[in-house]
Structures are given as structure tokens and as C-alpha cells.
């Protein structure tokens, strides 16, 4: 394979993986903006999205599209239940308490998943399994990558419309900007926190479903996805959604190029190196002036 085809091949892989990291990072951002906490169960939402989809479509033979929406719905509900069960009842909890609660939630969800699905790895047929890979010279583009990018773009558009053009979306942004003022104009801040959990569970689930056909899924995938998604969110500037998408592609590309040209054994280290690097050099991330301020607090 020529160098150029090889490069192109790695770029295709990197873009697909990067899109997923971007979506996981978006999930982090949504909850971070509403509550100031890092939800360490974010990776579990991704894992659950994939797993529930697998059970529905290959186990219960539910059609793909229907299965997609049911899976997202179920995981959304799980996100909401976590908020109502573990976050909502607390009166004036500290950010640290909340983060530890999300760790507990993560362990619980992972344990639950292992109990239900066992330790084996599952896969999902590609969304257009009949379509052959599209070749560019010797490199080939997996049609699932197009699905991933398309669905990611669609999710981004839906989110952008929600946050910019609906009153509820504006209220969520208002909460992120100033909780006191939000409650003074009549926003139920606690309800917005619930919504943020539901929303980031939903976007996590979508990411999990679209990645499974190319990356497979097992009960233990969430942790690594969360770490990489977190690195992405930090690189993009915590709280910045555009930053998350750009950073997702950067980390995805670095990872696949690094794995291809250097060694695949360093693949998982790259995101962590980026994370450390950003924290040392530019803690606000690429899009983050606000992030920087928040870090200083």
C-alpha cells in the first residue's frame, strides 16, 4: 500500500473515532454547563447505548431504526433516573460529592451491564451492511463512517437548534451562565439539571450505537471512552461544544495516525498525553476563555 493510501486509511479511521470522542465530550459539556460537575458515568451511557441496541436488534429482532430510538430512549431514562435518584435528593451538595456520586453510578452501571450481558464482546451489523466499502485508490472508506459522521452532524444540528432556538434550551444556557438569575426569572434549576442528565445520556447512547458496528462493544468499554471523551472535552475547552467537535477530530486523528505510523500499543496513551499537555500549557482548551476562568475558580 502506498504511503498516501495508508495515510488516507488512517485519516478515515481517525475521523470516525474522533466523531465519537466529540460526542462523548458533548455529553460531558452538557452536564458540566448545567451543574459544574464532570459526570464520570458518561462512558457508561455510551456503552449502554451500544449494548441495549445489540439486545434489541439481534436478540429481540427489533428493526434497526426502531431499535435506535428505543435504545436512546432507555438510556435517556437511565440518565434521568440517576439524576433523580442520586443527585436531586441532595441539598447543597459540593461539586466533589457530586463527582464521586457519578463514579458510583459508573461502577453500578458497569456492574449491571456485566450482570446482564456477561463479559463477552458483541457486535452490531453495519447500518447499511449491503453497501461495499468505497475505495479511494488502495484505501477504503467504510460506509459506517459516513453514517457516524452523518448522525453526528444531525445530533449537532438538533442540539444547536435546541440550545439556540427553544425556550427550554435557552433556559439551560441561562442556568449555565448564572444559576441565581435563572431561578429569579422562574427557571426551575433542578429540572434543568435533570434535563442535562437526560440529554447527555441520549447523546452518549447515540454515540454508542453508531460506533458499535466498527468498534464492537462490551460492558467494560465505557471507562476508556469516558477518559478519551474527557480529554477531548478538556482540549476543546470544557463547556464548548464547537471545541468538543474539533478536539474530537484532533484526538481521533492523532490516535489513528500514531497507531498506524508509530505503534498501536501507544494508542490509548495519546489521549492522556494530550490531556496532560493541555492542562499544563493551556488549561482553557482551544475554545476556552471561559474554561480558563472556570479553572481558576
Amino acid at each position, binding site marked *: 500500500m502506498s504511503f498516501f493510501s495508508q495515510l488516507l486509511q488512517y485519516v478515515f479511521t481517525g475521523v470516525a473515532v474522533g466523531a465519537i470522542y466529540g460526542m462523548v465530550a458533548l455529553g460531558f459539556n452538557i452536564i458540566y454547563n448545567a451543574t459544574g460537575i464532570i459526570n464520570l458515568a458518561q462512558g457508561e451511557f455510551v456503552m449502554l447505548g451500544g449494548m441495549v441496541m445489540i439486545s434489541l436488534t439481534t436478540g429481540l429482532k427489533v428493526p434497526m431504526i426502531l431499535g435506535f430510538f428505543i435504545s436512546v430512549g432507555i438510556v435517556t431514562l437511565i440518565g434521568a433516573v440517576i439524576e433523580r435518584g442520586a443527585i436531586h435528593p441532595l441539598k447543597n451538595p459540593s461539586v466533589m460529592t457530586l463527582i464521586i456520586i457519578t463514579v458510583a453510578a459508573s461502577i453500578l452501571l458497569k456492574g449491571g451491564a456485566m450482570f446482564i450481558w456477561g463479559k463477552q464482546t458483541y457486535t452490531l451489523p453495519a447500518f447499511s451492511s449491503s453497501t461495499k466499502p468505497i475505495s479511494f485508490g488502495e484505501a477504503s472508506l467504510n460506509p459506517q463512517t459516513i453514517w457516524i459522521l452523518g448522525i453526528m452532524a444531525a445530533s449537532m444540528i438538533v442540539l444547536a437548534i435546541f440550545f439556540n432556538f427553544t*425556550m427550554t434550551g*435557552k*433556559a439551560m*444556557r*441561562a442556568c449555565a*451562565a*448564572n444559576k*441565581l*438569575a*435563572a*431561578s*429569579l*426569572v*422562574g*427557571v*426551575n434549576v433542578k429540572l434543568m439539571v435533570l434535563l442535562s442528565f437526560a440529554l447527555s445520556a441520549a447523546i452518549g447512547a447515540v454515540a454508542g450505537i453508531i460506533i458499535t458496528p466498527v468498534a464492537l462493544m462490551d460492558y467494560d468499554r465505557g471507562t476508556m471512552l469516558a477518559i478519551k471523551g474527557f480529554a477531548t472535552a478538556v482540549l476543546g475547552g470544557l463547556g464548548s461544544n464547537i471545541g468538543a467537535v474539533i478536539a474530537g477530530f484532533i484526538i481521533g486523528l492523532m490516535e489513528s495516525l500514531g497507531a498506524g505510523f508509530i505503534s498501536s500499543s501507544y494508542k490509548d496513551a495519546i489521549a492522556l498525553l494530550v490531556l496532560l499537555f493541555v492542562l499544563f500549557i493551556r488549561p482553557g482548551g482551544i475554545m476556552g476563555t*471561559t474554561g480558563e476562568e472556570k479553572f481558576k475558580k
Partner: protein
Amino acid sequence: MLKIRNLRSFYGNLQALKGISLHIEAGEIVALIGANGAGKSTLLNSISGVISSKRGQILLDGKDITYFPPQRIVKEGISLVPEGRQLFSPLSVMDNLLLGAYQRFSIKKKTQIERDLERVFQIFPILKERRKQVAGTLSGGEQQMLAIARGLMSKPKILLLDEPSMGLAPKIVQDIFRIILRLRDEGTTIFLVEQNAQKALEIADRGYVIETGRIVFEGKSEELLGNREIVRAYLGRGYRKVWE
């Protein structure tokens, strides 16, 4: 209209209000003056439900609203323009205003909200010019106007203003106080908290003086302005010179 009976508020073990009683009648401008840390903001925050740790009674038109959460209080018709503006800085001026109407937002009320928006733009023409601008980039005076305008968008019966003149140039303070008078004339009852006691009492009908969580004086504005002790304590040096 608004009646407060023996209100006591707490920050943990610290008692910031030690039994406040006051009343505000429809159509009045009532001023509350006091030094730093006297408990002025605490009182407003207690009324608007931000502070929930309290005892006593807050009645709005006879209805007990003491323990309502903030979002219920706005619905009942009390709107607080908090100290330090507290805008939604990354959002546009327009979004700040629309969010002001959040508690009554629905498709049905859309035209009504648009009408209120027009009214607010009439009072603050500068905000109409700046409606697409991000709130955080407005000047201090514009930010205060936006804060008041946002408070008005909930169509309050009573508007609570916490130090609207803070940090503003005299000319702008003048504008803001003129607007407060106008709002009263158009039917909004005003409870005005100020350290700028002179100015506040000039436009107010009545005033209360608060000191370390207690009301120590109350009366008509002229009475307060004519009271030597109050003048000495709250109206500053310049004013005293005129007097002596």
C-alpha cells in the same frame, strides 16, 4: 400589597435579619437604605425565595408566600433585579429579555410577550439597538438597564431593585432613577434598595432604614431627609455641610 412580619433570615448560624416588619402599598416607591452588610440584599433575597432559611411571614395581597421557591415568587408577581446585575452574560440582549418572561412563556402568549418587549424597548431604546449583542459586552449602565428590563419582562406587580445605581456614573444614575419614577407612574410598585440614600429618598414616597438586620427608622421620605441623625449616618459629608 406586600407585608412582611417579623422576618428573620439565617446564613447557617449567622442571623442576618433580626425581625423585619414592613409594608409596601400599591403604587408606592419605598426605599430601603442602610450601610454595607446591614442586610438589605438579604431582605430582598428572602422575599424572592433565594434564601429559604427564614422565619416569619411574607404576605402578598394577603397570600402567604414566605416559603415559595423563587420560580413561584416570580409567578406571583414579584421580580428581583439582583445586586450586581447578574445577567446571562454569554447570551444576547434579546435572549436575556425573553428569559425574563420565562415563567409565562408559551406559544399562546407569544404576541403578548412581543408587546411587552416593545414596551421595554420603548423605555430602554438603547436595548433595542443592542438586542443582538452579547449581554456581557454591554457597558455598565446598559447592563443595569438590561437587568431592570429583564425584571420587567415577568410583568411584576412589585419590582425589587437591589442597588441599581451601584458603580454607575452620575448621569446614568440620573437616567435610571428617572426610569424608576416612570415605571411607578405606569403602575409598577417599587421597592428600592440603595446605599445612595439621598437619591433614593428623593424619588421615594416612604423609606426604611436598616441597621444590622433591624429596621431602625421608618417614615415619609421628607421625614427621613429631615432627620439629623439619618442625614449624618447615611447621607454623607457633602450633605451635612449644607445642613450645618
